[in-house]
């Protein structure tokens, strides 16, 4: 996987005593201590993070945690005090911290686009003039600009609104204009600074869905700042949690939920609905940890109600439930199957926990088996596993 943006030990300090503050950072001082001793504000310290192409990497944290500060280092809206921010620029990589003004401008025009929390639209311009801003600044000829702007407006379903002024639109529509403006430059890297935070919850969910749809098509590299963990879990392929200017934990969404690195992260995830994040893979008991009987029989649950006979290739050859032969069916079709006792559902590692639970419900709390993509048996999920995951015990 190609690296799109690489933060290497990034320190950002706002204020005049840069050297003094950096020395304090090296001694591990907190933001409050640095403020007291130097009068400078610590933006972020020692931040290292690699963002690969095509990822949606979410920076999370409470306000003042340094997430926006770090994001804004990518296009040098914030000046980095020390460290490197390497941004992919075609075939080469540019260090945004040290590059000259002309390179920075080219990056901002062609490589890195941005979407703002407060939209940042120019109120005296029409929607299409706003969307064309980046192209205009880059000197794209008017005919080509018009064509590209029109295409973007279509993409975000705003083509009938092209001639309206930005302030005549609702908040959700304004942010679509902001998205279209960023997409219009065709920059492969997109910085999104709490883009949906100013919107009401329904519109926010809708725009998140739209962003995911567009992303499936456009495959941009997105760095997304959010203070809302539900949002982060929904759209992020990676999540980085920040506190007091420092990175606390980086990982896949389910890593964060299942293995929080400290109390700060634990507080963060306290109110998250695990059903929206967890998959069958996250909660299953591995095949090796199950109770093995003779002749290749394996008990799927601790109560020993259900067992599978597995052949030497890892495939299931027979199933038994409550001592009687049973069939095994995919829980993808759980809705279609009539409720009967003689069946055991199986799931794939990526199946959501919600589906697994529904399968259990429909089979009178029978355990759910886990098959890999070659139908080999890899593990099982019992009621207890589900409950412990949901309760985080």
């Amino acid at each position, binding site marked *: 996987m190609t690296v799109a943006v690489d933060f290497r030990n990034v320190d950002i300090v706002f204020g005049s005593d840069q050297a003094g503050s950096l020395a304090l950072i090296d001694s591990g001082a907190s933001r409050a201590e640095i403020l007291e001793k130097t009068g400078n504000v610590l933006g972020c310290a020692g931040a290292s993070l690699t963002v690969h192409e095509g990822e949606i990497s979410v920076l999370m944290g409470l306000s003042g945690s340094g997430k926006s500060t770090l994001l804004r280092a990518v*296009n040098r*809206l914030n000046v980095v005090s020390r460290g490197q921010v390497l941004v992919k620029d075609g075939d080469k990589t540019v260090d945004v911290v040290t590059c000259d003004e002309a390179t*920075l*401008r*080219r*990056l*901002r*025009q*062609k490589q*890195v*686009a*941005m979407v*703002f929390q*407060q*939209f*940042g*639209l*120019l*109120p*005296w*311009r*029409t929607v299409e003039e706003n969307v064309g*801003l*980046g192209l*205009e*600044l*880059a000197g794209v000829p008017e005919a080509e600009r018009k064509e590209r702007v029109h295409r973007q407006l279509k993409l975000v379903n705003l083509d009938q609104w092209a001639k309206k*002024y930005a*302030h*005549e639109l609702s908040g959700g529509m304004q942010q679509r204009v902001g998205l279209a*403006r960023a997409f219009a*430059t065709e920059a492969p890297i997109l*910085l999104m600074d709490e883009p949906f935070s100013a919107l009401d919850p329904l519109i926010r969910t809708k725009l998140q869905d739209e962003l995911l749809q567009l992303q499936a098509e456009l495959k941009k590299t997105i760095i997304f700042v959010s203070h809302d963990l539900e949002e982060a879990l929904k759209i992020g392929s990676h999540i980085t949690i920040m506190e007091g200017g420092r990175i606390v934990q980086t990982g896949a969404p389910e890593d964060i939920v299942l293995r929080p690195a400290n109390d700060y992260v634990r507080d963060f995830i306290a109110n998250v609905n695990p059903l929206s994040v967890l998959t069958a893979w996250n909660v299953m008991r591995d095949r090796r940890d199950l109770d093995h009987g003779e002749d290749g029989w394996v008990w799927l649950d601790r109560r020993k109600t259900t067992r599978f006979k597995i052949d030497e290739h890892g495939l299931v050859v027979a199933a038994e439930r409550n001592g009687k032969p049973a069939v095994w069916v995919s829980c993808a079709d759980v809705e279609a199957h009539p409720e009967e006792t003689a069946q055991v559902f199986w799931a794939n590692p990526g199946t959501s926990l919600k589906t697994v639970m529904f399968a259990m419900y429909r089979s009178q709390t029978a355990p759910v088996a886990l098959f890999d993509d070659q139908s080999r048996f890899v593990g099982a999920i019992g009621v207890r596993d589900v409950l412990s995951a949901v309760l985080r015990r």
Partner: protein
Amino acid sequence: MDPISKFLVSYQIPIGAWGKAFFTFLTDNFNTVLRAFSNGLNFLLDGMVDGLLLLPPVLLIALIALLAYVLQRSKGLALAVFLGLLFILNQDLWKQTVETLVLVVAAAAASMAIGVPLGIWAAHKPKVYRFMLPVLDLMQTLPTFVYLIPVLTLFGLGNAPGLVVTIIFVIPTPVRLTHLGVTSVPKSIIEAGEAFGATKRQLLWKVELPSALPTIMAGLTQSIMLSLSMVVFAALIGAGGLGTEINRALGSRRIDLGLEAGLAIVVLAIVLDRMTRIGVGGKK
């Protein structure tokens, strides 16, 4: 007098003498340049007045009403302008009004031409603004009569010194309002411009100035109004127009003449104010 006051008075700082010496130095050494400047300016202003007076007054009034319509897209306003100016003609003050109009428009235009760039500069450089501020305060609070005298000695009598004093009095307003407009551009849209790779110049022309335009245009309206308020003072040093009539009315205690000329100034003020109020596209 008590001893301390006596002591202080006996060592009076010769501000007045220094100032006088400075202006004498200017007139002694740059007299030709200053006179050439003032003659050129007089020629220009008088030429404009004469040119406008060549047109039949009713035609000129119709043209101004048409301009009002073009600027504001309002038939009602055009009609009001037409009737207002006809009233002035009716009072037999047309020549003086044209003289005043030329002076006011020239002063406002010059003030904007100098004041807006200064305001932008000050907005970008807070240090510059800190130095500019006391000078602007001085220009606005120094009683007008005080600088009538040196301007008179430097430029002689006529329209040119009238224009200069008017500009001195007016210019702080466009500077301040432009500064206000540019410094209060929302940070979010400046950052949007920067994030999409605007150069400093693009940022100024495509983001800062359009955003500050309503405030800058308020500066234009204010400049015109302030220029009008200087008409009477400018008349004291030889600028013609309605101010001369008012000064004459004051000298001869003619209530009727003062009222006529005074009303003409008010009408002119309202006309110019309504014509130059420019809203920004799309903003309601």
